[in-house]
């Protein structure tokens, strides 16, 4: 019995470590091949710097370009946008579910907005908020809002009929029906929406930083690229990737906590 219960977690952990190691291995292999190609002259080193140079440039951009504080800045902007996204996106989806008129009126254009290049509106935000972090945050927020709204709506409307009926048969009030049935049933889908939203937000935050030459990693990338410091540019991009990795780790924790908690 103890054997039987002890075995599955171990197998799960092993199968969890193996793909991660393989993934890391492929990445390393990719960089090694890249390095060889560049050194042998197969690739132009003025277009793609060799990975070894990128790694070598890390200390430089950390010391000289304050990459860490920029990283924190971009991360903070993304987190702020992410929190706003979650609050307003989920609330928007819930409202649209609650008021059918609102849903019929807005669903189509919210969906249209989801695929529109909202980032092109950045001059408007620049005028409203000035050249500061709020322009960047609002841009990330607005462009990532539609998927969160739509996924929330989809999750709530997609709650299985029989679960709603169970709630009704227990005489739940509309508030209880929402918090005890619709919302938990929709939670997995809502998380898909938030994840999508965060991707949008990150892209837009870094993009706008780049465009308005202000703030965190986006600006740094802009500057380094202009200085033609390719190794530094790629090193800075690595930090952008790090932001997204940290994001998804936090999100995964939150999801596990929310969907497994009582």
């Amino acid at each position: 019995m103890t054997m039987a219960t002890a075995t599955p977690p171990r197998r799960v952990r092993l199968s969890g470590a193996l793909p991660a190691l393989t993934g890391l291995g492929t990445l390393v292999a990719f960089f090694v091949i890249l390095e060889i190609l560049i050194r042998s002259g197969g690739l132009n080193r003025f277009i793609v710097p060799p990975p070894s140079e990128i790694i070598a440039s890390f200390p430089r951009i950390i010391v000289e370009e304050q990459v860490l504080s920029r990283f924190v800045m971009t991360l903070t902007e993304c987190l702020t946008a992410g929190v706003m996204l979650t609050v307003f996106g989920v609330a928007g989806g819930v409202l649209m579910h609650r008021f059918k008129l609102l849903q019929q009126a807005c669903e189509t254009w919210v969906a249209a907005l989801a695929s529109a290049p909202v980032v092109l509106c950045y001059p408007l935000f620049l005028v409203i908020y000035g050249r500061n972090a709020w322009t960047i945050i609002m841009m990330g927020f607005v462009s990532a809002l539609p998927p969160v709204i739509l996924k929330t709506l989809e999750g709530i409307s997609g709650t299985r009929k029989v679960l709603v009926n169970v709630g009704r048969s227990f005489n739940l009030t509309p508030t209880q029906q929402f918090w005890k049935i619709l919302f938990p049933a929709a939670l997995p889908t809502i998380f898909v929406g938030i994840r999508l939203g965060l991707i949008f937000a990150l892209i837009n935050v870094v993009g706008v930083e780049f465009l308005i030459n202000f703030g965190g990693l986006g600006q740094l990338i802009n500057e380094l690229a202009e200085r033609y410091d390719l190794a530094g540019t790629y090193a800075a991009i690595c930090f952008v990737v790090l932001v997204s990795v940290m994001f998804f780790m936090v999100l995964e924790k939150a999801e596990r906590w929310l969907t497994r908690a009582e």
Partner: protein
Amino acid sequence: MTAPSPNAANADILVVDDVVVRFETQEGPVTAVDHVSFGVRQGEFLSVIGPSGCGKSTLFNVIGGLIGHTSGVVSVGGETIDSPHKSIGMVFQEESTFPWRSVTDNVAFPLELIGMPKAQRIERARHFIALVGLDGFENRYPNELSGGMRQRVSLARTLASEPKILLMDEPFAALDEQTRLLLGDKVLQIQQQLKQTTLLITHNITEAVQMSDRILVMTYRPGKVKRIVDIDLPRPRTSEIVGSEAFGRYVAQIWADLREEASRGMRDEEEHTLHHTGGAS
């Protein structure tokens, strides 16, 4: 069962009176339940049996107050039903556990609603979990259980709310024969102990005869009452009764009724298909 006294109707806790349910579909109106009338007495175990698609679940939903009916009256203890009634507990035909709650939290759900303190409701929930034979699975989640086990969780959840009237729509359909019989025994025990009024919807004749005081046989399309059969078998009944001769007679009688309806149903559907393919070509 004693013969119905002249004022038996007064003792009926649940009354279904001349109920009609008609659905508007693209192919025109479909009458799912057609002028169905019957009463369920306090403490009685009544089964509704009929071929697939005859309107059993529709009737179940109407009595549960989940869907409206076209005409007629459904009442519980004299109160007309047009929304879910407090004293009715429902077990659904489809999988209806909450996937985000553990077995214990699923079963404790109705107790949580009445504000029972946590420690107490967990203890209550364990009692009902044990009753449906799921001890040891208290902390599992529904996706870790088999279909039959999930169905038992739903049953335990409804039992935990201790409804005056228990309404079940084919709750054992996903179970294998042995589990079905054993669980049937349990439900019967509980029902007898609490003298709980129970309405069971099923298409399993053995199950119906084993458990019921009366069986209502429905016709296929439109769903009418074909016959109400009194089951005069001694109680307490266990699954052992299944082998007896009297039991066999009841089964044969109901089977004869049902076969007629089922074959009519099959014929109907075949004609429907033929008609349609004929029309399309």
